């Protein structure tokens, strides 16, 4: 069989599509890549759950020993932890492995993102889907739902809505901060440490009531690395504590807006830093 030669003419066959469509195509590609290894699927997710389970068990033991921490009961602390972990799970499930940007640049892979008719960040974001991330999300949801039924909160449309928005916003906060940190890789700076540090702060401090820390740390975790907006402020609002915080009450009530605002900021930072991209010498 021989095929007819093609005359491509002057009109290319491709056209630009909306960003969300290219995002979905790329996400689909990343998922399909990961699901090539079907045998690993279950084990990988399980390992994610186990990893997060151990982290939670540690807090559980500490809190159970003291009964309460800073006036927060076991189930209330589990609630903070659940929000934090679910938000984190959402971020990592849709973001693949953003933290590989340094390597992606050094190995020249970033060049190819720039010669495709799609956003460079969307391509990096969907470079790889990492299955254990589903475990993060699953464990987060289990802890969050279990804790939500235990705490003395008044669940109605308003409070449930607030919780959902807060979780979404929490995922955005973590994602935006990671993008901002990663952006500095375009200036050939090594961002590994700063991103590692951020990850550590999120997983080590994120599950506790921020009020147990000295005021200096509290302020840092509120205004420098806005971790307090991810899970602590929403939990304080939902457990009726938002009146007596170290910040005005309206700030805690606004926490679902922190994520979208930071995402806008991250987009600007990413764009301004991308201008410094130098590719890699051969």
């Amino acid at each position, binding site marked *: 069989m021989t095929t007819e030669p093609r005359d491509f003419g002057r009109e*290319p066959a*491709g056209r630009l599509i909306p960003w969300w469509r290219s995002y979905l195509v790329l996400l689909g*590609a990343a998922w399909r890549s990961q699901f090539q290894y079907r045998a690993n699927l279950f084990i990988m997710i399980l390992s994610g759950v186990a990893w997060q389970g151990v982290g939670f068990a540690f807090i559980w033991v500490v809190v159970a020993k003291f009964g309460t921490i800073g006036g927060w009961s076991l189930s209330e602390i589990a609630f903070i932890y659940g929000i934090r972990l679910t938000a984190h799970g959402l971020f990592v499930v849709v973001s693949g492995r953003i933290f590989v940007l340094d390597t992606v640049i050094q190995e020249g892979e970033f*060049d*190819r993102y720039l010669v495709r008719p799609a956003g460079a960040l969307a391509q990096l974001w969907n470079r790889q889907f990492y299955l254990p991330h589903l475990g993060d999300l699953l464990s987060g949801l289990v802890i969050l739902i279990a804790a939500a039924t235990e705490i003395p909160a008044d669940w109605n449309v308003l409070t449930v809505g607030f919780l959902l928005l807060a979780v979404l916003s929490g995922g955005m906060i973590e994602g935006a901060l990671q993008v901002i940190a990663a952006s500095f890789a375009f200036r050939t700076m090594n961002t590994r440490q700063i991103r590692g540090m951020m990850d550590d702060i999120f997983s080590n401090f994120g599950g506790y009531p921020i009020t147990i820390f000295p005021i200096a740390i509290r302020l840092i975790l509120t205004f420098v690395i806005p971790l307090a907006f991810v899970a602590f402020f929403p939990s304080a609002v939902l457990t009726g504590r938002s009146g007596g915080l170290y910040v005005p009450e309206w700030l805690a009530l606004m926490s679902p807006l922190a994520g979208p605002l930071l995402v806008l900021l991250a987009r600007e930072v990413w764009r301004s830093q991308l201008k410094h991209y130098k590719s890699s010498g*051969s």
Partner: protein
Amino acid sequence: MTGLMAYVGARLEVVDPLGIIHVSELVKDFRRPKRIKGALGGLRTLVTRESVIKRAVDGIDFTVDEGEFLGYLGPNGAGKSTTIKMMTGILQPTSGKIEVAGIVPWRERQRNALNIGVVFGQKSQLWWDLPLRESLQIIGKLYAIDPARHRANVDWFVELLDLDPFFDTPVRQLSLGQRVRGDLAAAMLPEPRILFLDEPTIGLDVVAKERIRGFLSALNREAGTTVVLTTHDLDDVERLCRRIILIDGGKVTYDGDVESLKSRFVQQRRLVVKLAAGVEWRGVGIPGVAESIGDEAVELAFDPAEIQVSELITAVLADHQLTDVAIVEPELENVVHRIYASAGMA
């Protein structure tokens, strides 16, 4: 601003209506932190923030016409890849103008991407864990290619590049030659008007190289694709390129066709004579002829503008009995080697 660009665009249009790539006074500097050697060098490097500027591309001008097949050649570090990265929108020029199919690449990166295909020899653009077939499907969706066109292109590429034997194998398991063939198909699937290739045949065996050359030649001839190729393989160039641009130190040193390059840079022809058994070489005694005597044959280098071939042969025959005589035309390889050597770059 837009008015100005339109004006410039219009002017370029007038200068060369066929041009699809316009590059003028293009410059790219790389700034690198200056490394300080000696005691505490690393620390002082960080503190002083001094930097050295490397000018990788230094005022390049050229226009490529639609349908051309251009060889963009030069020694390592000449600035070839840097120029390609500016034409493809990866890098922003330090100064100068660049326009590809009517678009300033760095300013409208995504729109430019629709018009160009890019293949870097050493770096794949395919999804590593997926078979080639699926990579092509994903690209089809990403570029929103009409299904009928998609199918026709894939069929043509499968045949031309012989993709069938590995079409359903994950890309990570492919040989380098198979992978580059896959990359070519992926780059050309959206029917871009221009294909940029940066050392596509590096590290490939002869068979793979042949297949790729056949594909590129068919693309250029049948599909009408404009091709810009950098390579160190001068067989690629002789087989494919009608025009060559040579660059060195970020500057254009030659722009023209392959034949003129040979005659311009290598004035010399060589006459190779084989002596009959028992005959001793006695020389020709013509000034300007360089003799080199080997075991089997004697080589006489001469400038055809100064010395007639017939004159030289007559002089040889007058004194010697021969079994064979041949005139050797310069090979591109030697020509380019000579040019690099004269620039101190070999």
